[in-house]
């Protein structure tokens, strides 16, 4: 069951076309041309290596993140994930650290319009890109339709998976305003809830779709 879920989630949102797994990336920095594109333009202080590739780290390097429309200048080691940067440096703690290896979806944020597992994107990969977190989704007075419907259908218990689930649902509905119940089941398989709130989530997503369309 999980293999099916993983394939569908990757296929559905293509997040791995954007980012390399952490270790592959570190190996690739400085030696492969493929890494150049990932660094974007912001690591200006980095020296050039023999083949002209920019290298940064292992110490802190300047990293610029654009989160919920605001620009932040940070000094982070290149190994710091987007999730850790959000949680530890920007105090955006809505995205949760659970599996820390792209399995459970609790850290889901929206990167350039597509949902990604922030635990498996390096902060340095997200430079200059549009990072949307749950903190930017709504205000207390004006919740997003997905959030409203999560409350109404009690699609949360302990609530630890909820912000990630809400972001995944939001991204899903952005792409598909008229989802079928089957699509909800197959496309949202990348988020794990331990308390078992899926019955509520199913209804919440369909209701939110109605509200948004």
């Amino acid at each position: 069951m999980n293999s099916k879920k993983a394939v569908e989630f990757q296929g559905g949102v293509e997040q791995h076309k954007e980012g390399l797994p952490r270790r592959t990336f570190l190996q690739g920095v400085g030696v492969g041309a493929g890494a150049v594109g990932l660094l974007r333009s912001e690591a200006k202080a980095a020296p050039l290596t023999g083949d002209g590739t920019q290298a940064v780290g292992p110490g802190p390097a300047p990293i610029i993140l654009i989160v919920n429309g605001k620009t932040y200048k940070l000094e982070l080691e290149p190994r710091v994930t987007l999730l850790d940067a959000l949680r530890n440096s920007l105090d955006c703690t809505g995205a949760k650290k659970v599996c820390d290896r792209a399995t459970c979806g609790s850290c889901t944020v929206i990167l350039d319009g597509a949902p990604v597992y922030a635990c498996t994107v390096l902060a340095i990969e997200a430079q200059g890109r549009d990072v949307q977190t749950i903190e930017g989704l709504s205000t207390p007075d004006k919740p997003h339709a997905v959030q409203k419907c999560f409350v109404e259908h009690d699609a949360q218990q302990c609530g630890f998976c909820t912000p990630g689930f809400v972001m995944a649902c939001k991204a899903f509905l952005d792409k598909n305003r008229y989802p079928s119940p089957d699509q909800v089941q197959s496309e949202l398989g990348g988020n794990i809830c331990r308390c078992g709130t899926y019955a509520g989530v199913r209804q919440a997503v369909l209701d939110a779709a109605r509200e948004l369309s």
Partner: protein
Amino acid sequence: MAIEYSWAPPEEGRLYGGLRIDRIDGPDKAAGRAQYSYDRNLPAMLVAKLVASPHAHARITKIDTSAAEKIAGVRAIEIISPVGAEIQWVGTEIVAVAADTEEIAHDGVAAVNVEYEVLAHLVKEENLTKAGSRVSPETEKTDGNPDEAFQKADVVHEGYYGCATLAHCCLEPHGQVVDWDEDEIIVYASTQAIGAIGADLAKTLSADKTLGQNVSPSQVRVVTPVMGGGFGSKFSIDSWGIACAKLAKRTGRPVKLMLDRDQELMVAGARPSLYGNVKVAAQRDGTLTAYQAESWSTGGVAGRGTPPLPYLIEPPNRKTRHLVVSTNTGPARAWRAPNHPQAALLTMCAYDDLAAKLKMNPLEFFRKNLALTQRPEVYRTQLDKAAELMEWKAKWHPAGEDPRPGPVRRGIGVSIHTWGGRPHDSEVRVTIHPDGSVVAECGTQDVGTGTRTVLGVVVASSLGLPVSEVQVKIGDTMYPPSGASGGSTTVGGVASAARRAAKFALVKLKEEVAPSLGVTGEANPQIESRFARLAVKADLNRQMTWRQACNKLGARSISVIGRQPEPGGGKLADSGVGGVQMADVSVDTETGIITMNKMVAVQDCGLVINLKTAESQVYGALIMGISTALWEERVYDEASGKLLNADMEFYQLPGIGDVGELVVHVMTGVYDDRGVIGLGEPPVISPGPAISNAVFNAIGVRVPTLPLTPDKVLSALKVTKGGRA
């Protein structure tokens, strides 16, 4: 002055008893604003990480932290398991390293050098013959005359059943932030027991001479407004909590120490396994006469406990013998309804097989034997309701005789369960302020069950206000004490205490406003409070709004503490519930893959405070139960003693598309007069046996052990049917 605390008769406008009310912390959780322990970022806070044992059984011969100490940004190191300590399971915490950042803490952990004398280990217990001297007898019990009953029985069935050890896999890992000020230690802990862990911590810290300080429990404050799942595994301060506090003391800075995911799965919670050879007997008409089980389990190196066998349906003649296997695996912790799901499996599956041998529809078989339970009438009603919701009559066929053609076979199964759920001790303070605001305070914690909302509903309903008018403050030991959230004891405890506090506070308010309403004599029976208005019952024109009434208090607030238990306070809670569940599955006999089509749960829990969150408990239990039936298992490597699936790729939990249709029927209005009874445990008991029985019904052979993985399905088909698939 006599106050009517009881829940009944239904008051007009009451909020409990069947309404579906939104979780009051729902908007904060859905917006990511709810702040969990893991989310606490305090000024100058350090992050600590743990060195974990790579061995399942070993003695520590050397710990060298010098290289770690030299790393810039590493601030303090605390040894948890000293040289000479015997490690009894893989992942055991050895050293905690606190550093400026999480990354540096991980570097520090990697730089600690620990040497071990590796000892022989045992990590698997299913095959008893390999367990040798690590097996010890736990209990043996005989009732009636089982030997004679088996001899005289018309039909006897013998079978082997079991289920593997599981992990709790809480999404928020165990851990805490400790902020040690001079006079106060604040522990932001992911815990189910804010009222207990502070005293534990104080005691342990006082015993540590190197700290040179006595710590009184009154100095420790535990703060847990929300927590990310516990399921029975988060009652203790744990070694990492103590290490975290010591690191905070030594550095003078707040420290956050949360377990990494692999550690969470290795050390922070396991549900014991249970395996057994079971023998059951019945008369030709299906009346059960005897049950016998030779069972064994492991709860880690020292985990003990006896499963309640036979479970729930107790034939007059019984013989049970239980053995415990000491294994070098992460230790057992309470897991929703401790021992019940395992015992239910070793009972309901054997009965189901016996029913098949009798050529009886299992629903009829269970009905026939309800007299052997504590509450036959409850189960009879529930079996009927569940059968209706499952369309049992239309769907059932004899085991293995699905009339539809093709390799995918469909089947249904049933199981029943019980749980206590008595109320724990609790206090709740209700304060009515002159501006009309109402505050309910309780030192309980909401572990995701909806406790905060329960308090809001009870207090609001008892005062005649909407839930939005009550501010609920929980998750802090500054509030009146309450019990740990375990064993489905919370809802009865906090609801009863809140009811008494609110009712008594309302009487006081009525007395304050009586003169203004022209009421003389005892105010309480003459004045009613509904829909945020107080009115004279004999003349409803004499009334005032809630706010006007509270204004009469002048500068004083009314503050009342309600208690559970309270002599003379009426019986507001009870224990003992019943539930029935049915599963509908499809089994692909070519691949062995089981697909959930549908599950039905019918559950009694006395008086329902909030139907919405009550139903969520049952939905959640069904999903967790399906997960344990089909996927969950801690897989240890026999050779290395390591936990092979200490991550969430291979410790598999279902996603939204894996659980099928779920139908939940919480009984309301039927048992309201019993009062409130806890609900977290009971519905998680039956999914395993109900699903196993459904698979048996589908394919006609028993897959003996959970999880019902494809390989086991295929091998069961091969063994029994000679490769029919």
